[in-house]
């Protein structure tokens, strides 16, 4: 089966006033239809940039390299116009901030209808009716009334549901959800994630779920990519990342999340900050912050190596404490 | 333990005006809240977005006047103070905000930001400012060289450290953190939590933590108050309250935390609008256990919980989180500073 999305060696560089820097460096992964792949990592590690690169939504100062295939089609070889036609139809994206991601000037129904009119060629009226059905599908009660409301009249959870309805309206092959629940309340967050799972099952859409919440990953992802400073440092099946993490960064990350049970103790904290992408030290990017680091780590840049089927880590010391 | 800060029956309603400016109801942001914090104690206020946490925080610090009720700080009634006197009192109570990107004036250097409370309260002479700021920055884990930079040049975690340094600058007795770590990602969040925890115990500060993240609360707080739509629905020592939440809402919050494997959402629906909030128990619209009495009678906060059914609810089925295996615990311990146990 061709993966819904196959990313190979994705690199994104930005030209800025301080020079050119690589925000994403050789990222590879693939997602099968009906599967969820989670990308986790610290803020600024390149999660959003990667997803925007896949969508073709990066700003003019970005250069994208590598190979991106959506259901086998080479995205980077396409004309911008052809890519535009895929957006919203075959691949869709929902963003972190439901408040600002919806246009305050149009009512919810119209914003959804717009996609339908565009990609499915529906008439205004038919598109609107379809939009109401889409709202219904994302479990919005009283969808007809809600459709006529403006974003400011909707709660955060509602707005995110509208975003999801909009993204799924054309049954895309791929849905990228960039931190879809960070801005929401915990009780609502659970509802949204559950909804995404259900929809995935119904439509067979592949989901790339971007988050920095490992709890979310554990509950909802079949596969995980852990990113650090623009690179994948570990990829693993969803469960394995918890039971058997191999990269020190992943381990630190897991220990940093406060837990609700178990002994109340000090959190694992990864001291220091992400290296400045303009002045990346030689060797492993995580070495300066890594409690396991040995001398060689500051010299050799480790490549992602397969440790178990579907589980790879980019660490010279992996497997740590083989057990 | 004598209370440093005490609040009685605080009420704050924001009028909602219609077109001609007539009052058309009110946002019941805070509706009859009483609480107290002692020196050296950390109190957490948790609740969902819009439930009035920030408003309560502002009331406690006298940043806005309450409609009803009183706030006493060190035995002094804040509402009675003149604006100038109140400003002088700010030396003793400081605040840290949620969004480290928004709470530092983008056009002020770190030096100026941290020195500002020193100047305002004339704590050190001008000449001593640089040294003082340097020591504060060091204390929060930044280097004195950072003083010359602008906030936008820092990562979120670093900015929040700057904000903490600023809050510490005047040597307050109370700090209120309004979601001080919610905007940070996990690893940075851990850094900041550890920093705060260290500073609180070291300096014997009273700390009020506003948060919606129970995990964070558990890490720092001695006591927790759970708010729902302007009221406190449950209150108690943090460890006990989180282990065995009694109010259905607290239970829902507790159950909603991801990480325990796939499960159905604990409650349905969104938080209702605080304009004309539901009658009776404000949670009755979403409560799985709702009974008739809940719809009409406001449950009083008795014995740490405000629920008519508190005694009749089934025991809380603790959701078991994925337990880290021994290897993981061992490996993670490498990330904790030396000589540290529980």
């Amino acid at each position: 089966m061709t993966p819904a999305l196959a990313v190979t060696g994705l690199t994104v560089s930005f030209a800025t006033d301080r020079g050119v820097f690589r925000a994403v460096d050789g990222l590879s992964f693939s997602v099968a239809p009906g599967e969820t792949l989670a990308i986790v990592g610290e803020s600024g590690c390149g999660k959003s940039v990667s997803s925007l690169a896949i969508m073709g939504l990066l700003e003019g100062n970005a250069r994208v390299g590598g190979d991106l295939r959506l259901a086998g089609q080479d995205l980077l070889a396409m004309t911008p116009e052809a890519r535009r036609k895929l957006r919203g139809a075959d691949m869709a994206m929902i963003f972190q901030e439901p408040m600002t991601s919806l246009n305050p000037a149009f009512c919810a129904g119209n914003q959804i209808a717009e996609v339908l009119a565009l990609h499915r060629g529906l008439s205004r009226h038919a598109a609107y009716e379809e939009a109401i059905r889409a709202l219904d599908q994302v479990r919005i009660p009283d969808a007809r009334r809600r459709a006529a409301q403006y974003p400011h009249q909707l709660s955060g959870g509602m707005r995110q549901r509208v975003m999801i309805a909009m993204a799924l309206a054309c049954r895309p092959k791929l849905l990228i959800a960039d931190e879809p629940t960070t801005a929401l309340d915990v009780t609502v967050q659970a509802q949204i994630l559950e909804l995404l799972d259900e929809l995935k099952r119904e439509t067979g859409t592949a989901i790339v779920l971007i988050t920095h919440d490992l709890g979310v990953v554990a509950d909802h992802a079949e596969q995980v990519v852990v990113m650090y400073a623009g690179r994948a440092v570990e990829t693993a099946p969803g469960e394995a990342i918890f039971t058997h993490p191999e990269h020190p960064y992943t381990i630190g990350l897991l220990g940093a999340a406060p837990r609700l049970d178990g002994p109340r103790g000090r959190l694992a904290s990864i001291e220091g900050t992400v290296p400045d992408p303009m002045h990346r030290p030689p060797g492993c990017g995580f070495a300066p912050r890594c409690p396991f680091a040995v001398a060689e780590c500051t010299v050799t840049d480790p490549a992602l190596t397969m440790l178990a089927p579907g589980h790879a880590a980019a660490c010279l010391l992996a497997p740590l404490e083989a057990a | 333990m004598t209370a440093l800060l005490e609040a009685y029956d605080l009420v704050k309603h924001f009028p909602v005006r219609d077109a001609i400016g007539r009052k058309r109801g009110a946002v019941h942001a805070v509706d009859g809240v009483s609480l107290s914090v002692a020196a050296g104690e950390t109190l957490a206020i948790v609740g969902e977005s819009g439930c009035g946490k920030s408003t309560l925080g502002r009331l406690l610090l006298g940043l806005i006047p309450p409609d009803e009720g009183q706030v006493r700080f060190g035995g002094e009634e804040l509402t009675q103070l003149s604006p100038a006197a109140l400003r002088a009192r700010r030396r003793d109570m400081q605040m840290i905000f949620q969004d480290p990107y928004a709470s530092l004036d983008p056009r002020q250097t770190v030096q100026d930001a941290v020195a500002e409370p020193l100047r305002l309260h004339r704590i050190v002479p001008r000449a001593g400012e640089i040294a003082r700021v340097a020591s504060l920055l060091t204390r929060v884990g930044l280097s004195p060289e950072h003083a010359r930079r602008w906030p936008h040049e820092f990562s979120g975690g670093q900015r929040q450290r700057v904000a903490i340094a600023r809050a510490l600058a005047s040597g307050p007795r109370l700090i209120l953190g309004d979601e001080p770590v919610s905007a940070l990602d996990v690893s940075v969040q851990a850094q900041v939590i550890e920093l705060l925890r260290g500073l609180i115990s070291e300096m014997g500060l009273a700390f009020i933590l506003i948060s919606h993240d129970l995990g964070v609360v558990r890490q720092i707080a001695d006591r927790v108050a759970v708010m729902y739509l302007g009221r406190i629905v449950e209150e108690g020592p943090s460890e006990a309250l989180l282990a065995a939440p009694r109010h259905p809402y607290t239970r829902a919050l507790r159950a909603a935390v991801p990480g325990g494997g796939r499960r159905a959402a604990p409650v349905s629906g969104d938080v209702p609008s605080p304009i004309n909030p539901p009658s009776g128990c404000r949670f009755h619209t979403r409560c799985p256990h709702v009974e008739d009495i809940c719809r009409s009678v406001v449950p009083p906060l008795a014995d740490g919980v405000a629920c008519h059914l508190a005694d009749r609810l089934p025991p809380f089925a603790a959701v078991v989180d994925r337990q880290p295996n021994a290897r993981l615990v061992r490996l993670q311990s490498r990330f904790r500073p030396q000589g540290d146990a529980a």
Partner: protein
Amino acid sequence: MNADSPRRRALRRFFQHRLAVLGLVVVVVFILAAVLAPWVAPYDPIQTSWTRLRKPPSAAFLFGTDENGRDVFSRVLWGARASLMAGVVSVLAAMLMGVPLGLLAGLAGKWTDALISRIADAMLSVPFLILAIALAAFLGPALENAMLAIAISAAPVFVRLARGMALEARSADWFEAARALGNPPWRTALLHVLPNIVPPLLVQGTLAIAEAIIAEASLSFLGLGQQPPQPSWGSMLNSAQRFLTQAPWMAIYPGVAIFVVVLAFNVFGDGLRDALDPRSQRR
């Protein structure tokens, strides 16, 4: 993090904006021309000659001569003094008046806001001419007073602008943070709000410069601006008005000077705004 100081980075960001630098260069050139006019102007700007009235541009008189036989080029150079003053100083003065009032209105709210806003509304509908004549009579005709009149009539726009921005700032976290630290209101306004509303003020300010330079022309026509025979671009345009067909160069050169200066200030302002905005991420 780059080790550069933020000021240096802002500067560099500015200097990487080629157009803005060009704008700055033009502004500087004009300022230099104004300052150095006595040395760089080929002729005395007020020296009349009855033998070379309204001569078209030539090698000897680059921009031609005017109705009194004076060298238009020299007058454009000297006129830069009055016109730049009228443009820049009066806009600065307008900001000095309007911005604090706008801040006060926006931050104090209630009746202070109502009063200031109503006065600003009223001022916006007072015809410029009435204000100018009344003020000039009150203060006496002189360039400085004309600038004051221009400033006063330009101020209400800045009041509105600053008020709007202040209202926005009031809901920002850093505003609340400043209050929580114990800042008195005036200090919050001046040290925190003011620096944050600079960018939109820059846009409006650079536009207002154009209006001010033209306004000086109408004032000098009324005898309230630059007094004859001293030149200003505006007054040169005024006297050129009688000879638009016979001696078009008399109008064209001061007109072009105004255009170039206005353009330069605007691109310079754009560059400055970007450079001052720490969040701007431009190439």
